[in-house]
Structures are given as structure tokens and as C-alpha cells.
């Protein structure tokens, strides 16, 4: 009889560093003994396990995964709360990488616009890091990042460096802003949709989007106004990806498992899918 092992076996990731980001977001760096996660592509995710508490899917936010992997985690539920109690040197379980990330090979040779809202900046960061590592392969590169309040800005230091680079155009917007230490005029009061209107995007751009579910509809409308086609719009969807391997059924959407066919989908592929972005947020904003 063939002996196979369970696909639910995590590997141990020792916390190498914890960097508090804005508000309830920490950047965790894990070190693992194997190179299973080294094949991670921008936009893929891992299942993060806190023993005794549970697992949750977290986007990989580093474009270069070597012996360590970075995860940006917001304290939002049981598992992440428990993770926030941990210290450097503690370990958590990691399974993955899972899913199809952003199709970087298809983006090559083309103009690229990345749109992030709130915590959606995490998978987008893995993309921009990849793109900047292979800058000569891409045309114009634009990054649009919107948040509710400028205090919530994630990767602030890294964004400062990006603002100084000439080969990526960065638009930052917040619904509400206080004084921030970014270069003058870098930050605007407004929404991502306002930034899309300002940016020089036209039909030949590939657009990668990640943000809260409510954001997609408005972003897609703006992109349509810019004549970007459904083939060139890529959405990273959030679902309850419990098993990560297309078995548990939680992340099923429009005939596919988000954990396997996604989480990054081409809009053209999702055109007739009910439940794509409509959802009830329980009255929360």
C-alpha cells in the first residue's frame, strides 16, 4: 500500500523579527528549515498556524523569498491575536505557498499599474518588489495606494524610498490625513479612485488590484473609464481559504476554489460570477 503523508502538515517557522507597523499591523519575518517556501511567487499565500488556536491564510508580502519569509499581519481575529502575543524566537506553523499569484510573466514587456487599498498593500508589495528587481522587463510602473487615514500607512519607510525612485510613479491617498513625514505633496486627501483618474493609465496597462471587497467595484468603474479591458484587470480576492488545497469548500466561488484558481483572478474570468465582490460587512465600514 502506498504511504502518503497528510497535506496539512505545516513546517515550523521561527520568528526572526517583529516590526510594528502602523496601528494594529505587524510585519513578521519567519525563518524556516526547508526551502519549501522559497518558490513563493508575488500574490501567493501561506496558511499560518498558531498551535492551539488555529490557522488563517496570509498573503506573502515579500517579493524575494529566500531563507526567510515576511508576512504582514493585522490583528483582526483569534489567530492573529494569538500571533501578536508571540515574541522573536517563538515558532508558528507555515503551509504553502498556495494559489496562483499575480501573473508576472504575462506582465513582462507591458505597463503595469498596482492598486492597493488598506491592508491590500501586503500582496501588492510582493509584486512591486519583484517588478523593481526585474525593472528592465517592464514598461511604465505605477503604484496607487489608498487608506482611510494617513496614520494607517504601511511600509512608510519603503514608500519614501520608492517616492525618490524615478522608475516607479507612486500615488498615495487617504480619506483623512494628518501631517506625515513624506515629501511634500506626496500624500493627497482622497480615495484610490481619485488617484486612478490622475494617473496616466490607458488601455494598454495591466492592472493588479488588492484591497477590501467594497473597493473593487469603484476601482473597476474608474479603470473602465480609462478603457482598460477585463483581460488586463487582475483582482486578488479574499475568501476563507481554510485548507489551501481545494478540499474544504469554504473559498468556493463561481465554479472554482479561490485557493487554487486564485486568489488572483483575471476580471474577464469572473465576469458572470455572483458573489464576486458583493458581500455583507455587518454594518462595519
Amino acid at each position, binding site marked *: 500500500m502506498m504511504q502518503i503523508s497528510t497535506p496539512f502538515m505545516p513546517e515550523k517557522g521561527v520568528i526572526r523579527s517583529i516590526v510594528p507597523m502602523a496601528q494594529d499591523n505587524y510585519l513578521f519575518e519567519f525563518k524556516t528549515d526547508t526551502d519549501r517556501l522559497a518558490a513563493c511567487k508575488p500574490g501567493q499565500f501561506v496558511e499560518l498556524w498558531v498551535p*492551539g488556536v488555529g*490557522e488563517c491564510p496570509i498573503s506573502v508580502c515579500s517579493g524575494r523569498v529566500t531563507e526567510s519569509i515576511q508576512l504582514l499581519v493585522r490583528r483582526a481575529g483569534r489567530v492573529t491575536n494569538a500571533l501578536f502575543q508571540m515574541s522573536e524566537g517563538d515558532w508558528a506553523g507555515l503551509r504553502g505557498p498556495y494559489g496562483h499569484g499575480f501573473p508576472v510573466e504575462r506582465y513582462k514587456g507591458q505597463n503595469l499599474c498596482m492598486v492597493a487599498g488598506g491592508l491590500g498593500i501586503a500582496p501588492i508589495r510582493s509584486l512591486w518588489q519583484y517588478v523593481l528587481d526585474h525593472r528592465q522587463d517592464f514598461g511604465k510602473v505605477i503604484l496607487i495606494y489608498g487608506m482611510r487615514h494617513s496614520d494607517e500607512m504601511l511600509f512608510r519607510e519603503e514608500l519614501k524610498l520608492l517616492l525618490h525612485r524615478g522608475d516607479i510613479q507612486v500615488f498615495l491617498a487617504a480619506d483623512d490625513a494628518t501631517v506625515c513625514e513624506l515629501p511634500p505633496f506626496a500624500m493627497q486627501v482622497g480615495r484610490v479612485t481619485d488617484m486612478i483618474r490622475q494617473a496616466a493609465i490607458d488601455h494598454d496597462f495591466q492592472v493588479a488590484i488588492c484591497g477590501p471587497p467594497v473597493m473593487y467595484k469603484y476601482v473597476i468603474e474608474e479603470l473602465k473609464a480609462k478603457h482598460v479591458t477585463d483581460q488586463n484587470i487582475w483582482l486578488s480576492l479574499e475568501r476563507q481559504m481554510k485548507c489551501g488545497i481545494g478540499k474544504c469548500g469554504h473559498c468556493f466561488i463561481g*465554479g472554482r476554489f479561490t485557493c487554487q*484558481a486564485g486568489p488572483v483572478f483575471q476580471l474577464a474570468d469572473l465576469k458572470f460570477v455572483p458573489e464576486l465582490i458583493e458581500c455583507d460587512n455587518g454594518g462595519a465600514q
Partner: protein
Amino acid sequence: MMDHCFVLAKDSFAEFFKSLSKLGRVYAPVKVSYQSYSFRQVESHEQIAFEALRTILPPKKYFYPTQETILRYNDGQIEEHKPEIDFQILFGVHPCDLAGLGIMDTIFTAGPADSHYLTRRQSSLIVGLSCMPDKHCFCQSMGTDCPESGYDLFLTDIGDDYLLEVRTAAGVKAVDPIMPLLRAAGQDDESRYKAFWSNRAQAFTNGFKPDNLRSVMAIEWDNKIWDEMADRCLSCGNCTPVCPTCYCFDLVDIASLNGTSGERRREWDSCQFVGFAQVAGNYNFRPGPVDRLKFWYRHKLHGFDDPFGFQTCVGCGRCTVSCPAGIDDIVSVVQALQATNQAKTKHDAN
């Protein structure tokens, strides 16, 4: 066609059973209340309820238990928990449930394969048994009324005898000790066998035309019938554990009080529960009973089309009899959807 078929006299069934029980634990349908049956371990052939049609739970529970430990951790060590399996024999599995097991096999074998399910499946022998449909059976409409695969042995009731089909190598091994009890099937047996299946095909009183089922599901996605049913849906989730092809699960941690050890367990979950599609930040992609009910119906009648392009309803009727709100009558729902769809087509033609 009948060269792998033998005849077992019903009088010799006790011997056959005894021989099976030497191989391992035998599970078979047992009458557990006035109108319900359940797969249970049986010690004697007299405990078996041959008349049983649908058991409360389908036989999936022997390969995919309601809860099972996947791994354990202790002091920083993580270890896979391999299930300890004694060889098990499932007796009396009807064609609909065989089809259901076939679908479960496809799901759990698809990469990455599920070791816990497959280990149990590989140390089992499945003995199918023919049946006559009641008013809730509609396997004929779903094309699962004849046994095609997923069994090692299959018994067809042909009067005073059973026609015993031996399908697999494991089946050959299982019948080897009782070969003296069997005789090769002859022409008369073959006609009795054919007569049984043809009578059975005529015996269905419930069903629908399976044509265009998938497109009707898609076209009638916004039919008002869904809202009417959802108004009555209790979101109790009864329809999912009783379904032979519902396999959604949750992975949970059970920590011990010392805080350093515990286990990770898999438990059956239901798409009818409100939190099933909820993500962090309280976003819920299927907030209402109507969204969840349609989701379940879609899985059964349309299927998870991209990864596995088949419908997953096998027509056993379990959901229909176990729904406390009386809305899981798949046959009536399909008939209603088809009727609306046809009315529209006619209207358009005029």
C-alpha cells in the same frame, strides 16, 4: 458479460457473511427506529436490514469520520497522526451511495491527495446490494441508478438467489474461501438478473428529465423560487451531513490545558452555517439563507465545474427526508425551475 458473476443462494448467505466477517469488521444497515436505518457494526447476518434504502448518514462516515485527528504537537514537535485502521467491510451499499463514494474518491484523490481518507478507503471492502426505489429515490434522473464502479462485490436480488458480481482483485480474494458455495451464473440467472434491473428501472415514481440541468441552474439563478425556499430555510445544515457527496470541513485546534501540546482536528462543516464564507473584518460573501441555499443546490446540480466537472447529486433522497423545513425536495425544485425555463422559452418563441 457474466463471466465474473456467480450465484449465491440466499440460504447460504449466513456462510457468506461468516466468511466476510473473518476479514475484518462488518458494517451494514441496521434498523434503529420505526423508520430509520443506520450503518452499524454487525456481528451476525440476522442484524442486517436488507430492506433498508437510505441510512441516516451515508457510508462516507467510514472513510471521512465526523471528526478525526490530523496531527499532534507537543513541546515544539509536530507529528502527523496516522489513523489506525482495521480492515473494514461495508455491506449493503446501494448504487446511489456507490456513486457518492466515487465522487468522494475523486475529490480526495485529486492532488494533493488526502492521506487520511485514502488510508481508510484502501483498507476497506465494499459489498454493494441492489434495491427497489421508494417515492423519494431519484437516482435514475441523476444517472446513478446502476452500479458502475466503487465496489468490490455486488449482490443483485434475483429471487431465491443473489447474483454476485466480482469486480476487483480484493473481491476475488474475498470470495475465494466461499467458492464451494457458489456456482457460475447460467443463462437462466442472467435472465433473472436482467429482469430485476429492468423491473427496477420501471419502478421509479420520482424524478425529472436531467436534460440541460446545468444550464437551467445557471439561467434560473435569480428565480423567485429560491427566495420562497430561503424564507423557510432554518440554516440548520441538516442537508449536508446526510449528503453522500458533501465533504466540506473545518480544521480546528484542540489545545490541552498545559498550553504546550494539543492536536489539530478535521471536523465536518456545513455551507449552510452563517460563518461559512465569512472573512476577517466581518465580510460575509453569503450572508443570507438564500445565498447559502443556492450555493448548496449549485454544488449538487451544477457541480464545482472548474476543478471537477460533474454534478454531485446522486439522487438518494436523504436531504429530502431530513430537511425539517421541507425545502430540500430536489425533484420539485428542479421541476419548478425547468417549468419556468420552458415557459420563458415558449414565450420568447411566440
